[in-house]
């Protein structure tokens, strides 16, 4: 049966199992929207800004592991998606972004609302396509989804001129996809795996350093099995949180700039680091020259460009985390006697780590007069569901969440790590809630960042997405203020928000509920009230304004040179 290009796009989405898209209409996608009007198999959510729509698709992808889909019109609609695309790209999130484009005959003419969105997004997409012929739509959509989700995932942009949406063609969706120039290497080399296990079993001070790849590759189970089998201490990056249960005694928590003292000390004193889907970001290594000076490094990553990019690697294994971990477990099981000996021999190492844990645990000074942000996070953990999904914005509140929430399941923390995009938290939670209407979805934001996409309150109310919005209000751009306090003589240049916002009224203006408190004694009550509400809620906590995120590795310092209290 012949149909128009717009309809073909929707049929492709359906074939890919897409149930929800986030999009905003305009002149060059009006045909697509006209088809959507009567297309019942896909839920379309209208955000109030294309950036938010893109973050929502991203949040949907992070929470589900499926490909998130966003739609925008050409020109300003497309450029509004750029921050969302770059955010997803930096954290390797699978997404397909469909942008309208001016008719093919006008491309290159500076036509109304024309931008070269493929050119603009080239450095922040995994790949992109301009569809010039209606007959190519199905093949390209198939490739776009395949590229987005396979190997190292990432956002793929599909630029769709208006005339291609109008033109007619037969629709048939390809069963398989084959791209001769793109063949991600998923199977870890058995010889390398064997060597890795050999190196591991002869280590005395091993550390498993886990990153977002373990979440993206759905390897939490295998990771946990291997670590428990060999009693390996596990530390995770911000992006890796949740891939290994933090309530397990083997967990060292997060490492890096605001990581746990014990995690950073363990890395520095380790003789063998197994990096699993982690990319040795500068927030994690500190000064590279003094990073893990005594350790041999095994690096497991699906993307060869991640390996040896920042640090030397003794044994690279290119492959999918789950495949490699699975093979490692089997290899360990082959020689179980050696494994038992190995475990016993780790006792002194565990003792040393316990010493670091006891010496400088992650902590804070409680107050009876003013709300400590860390206390709010702890209370949120205590009072929320076990499988609650938490998104954060970017800043101090993000780090307090990472330090104090305790993540025990994968895909329960959605946070912008690589780009550090303020404005991410609220729309990302919106996407997660759309995917999981029955789970508790909480976004933890600062007073600054929440205002970067606050308009999405309307989307939440309209679509009955009961996201619980927690605002840790210090009336400061707190993270920047902290740097100014520590490194710029307290010269608070443009970090004080001056104008206090009435967030309760703001919630009410959108038809939502708002609660606020500045008293430590009321924290629990407010959280309980907020959680009880059926709809979206703002819970504002006016916190100690000058509280700092500690410990901290100052920029350029070594991992073991942590500022513990300042």
């Amino acid at each position, binding site marked *: 049966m012949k149909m128009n290009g717009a309809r073909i796009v929707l049929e492709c989405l359906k074939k890919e199992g897409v149930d929800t898209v986030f999009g905003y209409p305009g002149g060059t996608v009006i045909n697509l929207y006209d088809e959507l009007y009567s297309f019942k198999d896909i839920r379309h959510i209208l955000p109030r800004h294309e950036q938010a729509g893109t973050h929502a698709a991203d949040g949907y992808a992070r929470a589900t592991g499926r490909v998130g889909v966003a739609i925008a019109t050409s020109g300003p609609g497309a450029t509004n998606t750029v921050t969302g695309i770059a955010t997803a790209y930096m954290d390797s999130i699978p997404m397909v972004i469909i942008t309208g484009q001016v008719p093919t005959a006008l491309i290159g003419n500076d036509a109304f609302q024309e931008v070269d969105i493929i050119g603009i997004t080239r450095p922040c997409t995994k790949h992109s396509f301009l569809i010039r012929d209606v007959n190519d739509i199905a093949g390209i959509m198939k490739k776009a989804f395949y590229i987005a989700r396979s190997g190292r995932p990432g956002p793929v942009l599909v630029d769709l001129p208006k005339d291609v949406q109008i033109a007619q063609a037969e629709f048939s969706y390809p069963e398989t996809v084959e791209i*001769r*120039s793109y063949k991600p290497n998923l199977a870890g080399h058995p010889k390398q795996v064997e060597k890795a296990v050999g190196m591991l079993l002869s280590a005395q001070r091993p550390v498993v350093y886990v990153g977002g790849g373990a979440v993206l590759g759905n390897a939490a189970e295998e990771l946990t099995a291997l670590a428990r089998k060999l009693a390996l201490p596990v530390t995770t990056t911000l992006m890796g949180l949740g891939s290994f249960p933090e309530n397990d005694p083997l967990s060292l928590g997060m490492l890096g700039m605001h990581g746990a003292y014990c995690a950073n000390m363990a890395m520095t004193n380790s003789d063998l680091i197994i990096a699993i889907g982690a990319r040795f970001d500068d927030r994690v290594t500190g000064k590279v020259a003094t990073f893990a000076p005594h350790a041999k490094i095994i690096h497991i990553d699906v993307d060869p460009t991640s390996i040896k990019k920042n640090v030397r690697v003794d044994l690279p294994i290119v492959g999918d985390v789950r495949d490699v971990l699975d093979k490692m477990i089997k290899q360990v099981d082959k020689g179980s006697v050696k494994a038992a000996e190995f475990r016993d021999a780790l006792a002194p190492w565990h003792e040393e780590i316990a010493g670091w844990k006891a010496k400088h645990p992650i902590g804070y000074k409680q107050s009876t007069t003013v709300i400590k942000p860390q206390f709010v996070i702890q209370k949120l953990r205590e009072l929320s569901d076990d499988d609650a999904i938490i998104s954060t914005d970017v800043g101090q509140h993000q780090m307090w969440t990472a330090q104090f929430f305790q993540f025990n399941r994968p895909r329960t923390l959605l946070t912008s790590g690589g780009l550090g995009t303020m404005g991410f938290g609220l729309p990302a939670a919106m996407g997660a809630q759309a995917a999981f209407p029955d789970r508790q979805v909480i976004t933890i934001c600062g007073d600054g960042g929440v205002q970067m996409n606050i308009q999405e309150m309307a989307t939440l109310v309209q679509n009955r997405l009961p996201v619980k919005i927690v605002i840790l209000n210090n009336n400061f751009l707190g993270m920047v203020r902290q740097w100014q306090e520590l490194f710029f003589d307290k010269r608070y240049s443009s970090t004080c928000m001056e104008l206090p916002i009435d967030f309760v009224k703001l919630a009410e203006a959108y038809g939502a509920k708002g609660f606020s408190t500045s008293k430590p004694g009321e924290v629990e009550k407010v959280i309980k009230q907020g959680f009880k509400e059926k709809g979206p809620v703002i819970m504002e906590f006016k916190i100690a304004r000058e509280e700092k995120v500690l410990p901290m590795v100052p920029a350029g310092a070594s991992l073991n040179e942590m500022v513990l209290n300042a």
Partner: protein
Amino acid sequence: MQHTISVLVENEFGVLSRVANLFSGRGFNIDSLTVAPTNEEGLSRMTIVTRGDEQILEQITKQLNKLIDIIKVIDFTDGSAIEREMALVKVTAEDESRAEVLRIVDIFRAKIIDVTPKSYTIEATGNPVKIDAILELLRPLGLKELVRTGAVAIGRGAKGWKG
């Protein structure tokens, strides 16, 4: 160190800019770049001459491999490839220098492809080092214009790039 890298690419819209972006976006240097179709339908071959330390070159090669439209990347380390380049050179040639230009052309087995009473235009092909050498000799006589193709390279021996 200088490296010559051959890149086999799908002849798709935007491939050249993806490759160029990869270099410019990361501050990698390109000395020369050529691209043209191959004997295989839809397949083009680029030859890129670039420089940098070994770690940077390894990163460049990996990043190139990662681009979706790129089928194969071959880094020709010294000696494993034959390289050729062509130059078109317009030189001043008047009175006594006319004979000198012809002598140089002859020695380098180059060709005169255009003549005027005041100039010769020369076509020279060969290894880039040879091109450098002929230019060195022509320069004092008055180089008016120079166009180089940049190097193209092919592996030595009986095997093709597919092995």
